[in-house]
């Protein structure tokens, strides 16, 4: 059954229910690479409108390795790792591993500079109730890589702090995010 869509570009398409999922900011890394991608002033800009946040990214790093696991997400500039706790479920391509990652807000494995050309890893991170000041913050992610790096992974990460989230930093802690890596922040409204 063929369904041609070309007419949509000119005629417009239907917005999904209530326009409750909206692009807030987006960054594409330039030719020099970028060690950290940050979304800042989030409480000021978004707390009154959005209940949840989602980061969608497609990235690789400049580190001279095939698989780069030295990547982290930090909230409000808090680099004290003991304030975080994570659990991972990972498929390696041959086995499934579930483990307590400890005080480590690691994002997982990305293709490094020695990986095959043009290979990037996709990731979707959900940050729930980031602006609520009565609860610690929780994140979950779905990510993977198929090629030079083989993994499919689901993480849960907690930040033991009830402060409203003002900053999300996504860091390549040894190398940098490579050119063409893309990071987009979305907001999910509390009401339509």
């Amino acid at each position: 059954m063929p369904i041609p869509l070309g007419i949509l570009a000119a005629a417009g398409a239907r917005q999904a229910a209530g326009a409750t999922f909206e692009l807030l900011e987006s960054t594409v890394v330039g030719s020099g690479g970028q060690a950290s991608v940050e979304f800042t002033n989030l409480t000021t800009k978004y707390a009154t409108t959005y209940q949840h946040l989602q980061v969608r990214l497609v990235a690789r790093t400049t580190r001279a390795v095939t698989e780069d696991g030295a990547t982290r997400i930090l909230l409000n500039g808090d680099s004290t790792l003991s304030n975080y706790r994570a659990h991972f479920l990972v498929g390696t391509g041959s086995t499934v591993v579930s483990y307590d990652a400890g005080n480590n807000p690691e994002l997982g494995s990305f293709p490094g500079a020695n990986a095959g050309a043009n290979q990037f890893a996709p990731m979707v991170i959900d940050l729930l109730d980031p602006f609520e000041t009565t609860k610690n913050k929780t994140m979950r992610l779905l990510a993977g890589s198929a090629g030079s790096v083989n993994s499919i992974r689901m993480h849960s990460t907690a930040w033991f702090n009830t402060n409203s989230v003002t900053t999300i930093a996504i860091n390549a802690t040894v190398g940098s995010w490579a050119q063409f890596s893309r990071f987009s922040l979305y907001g999910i409204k509390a009401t339509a």
Partner: protein
Amino acid sequence: MSYIALATTTLGSAAGSVTFSSIPTSVNGVALRDLVLIFDGTLSSSSGNIRVQFNGDTSSSYTYVFMLGSGSGSGASGAGNFDGVLGGVVGASIRSAQIFQVMDYSATDKHKTVLNRSASQNDNVYAIVSRWPSNTAVNSIRVIVSGVNLASGTTISLYGVA
């Protein structure tokens, strides 16, 4: 305006495949970054893995890594090549709900990657990543299970994410 419904079809009769063609890269001047394909359905007979093929490429150049939980034991993981983006199992008696996230589908500076989460009645729960080794923008998507018809009543939706 970030999540835009591009098309939805519910099959009125069994079909060998569903193809969305001439996929736009923008709508009303708003650039689309990702695509989200949602499958909810069954097959007319038998069972098999969903394939999502880009731009008519039916070669086995797509790579995948999956992990699954079967309801007992510690799960399983595998990797390899396939003749399409790999989805979870669907069958005549296996209703499956699957979400495919096609990232940076129109970018010409990277291979295309897809995250899949599948839940199948009477079968497994899956998480899958696939890569199509092409820098070409995706302009058509074909949904197929090799050699078996998608059953009447199957619904497939395509969304653009700005």
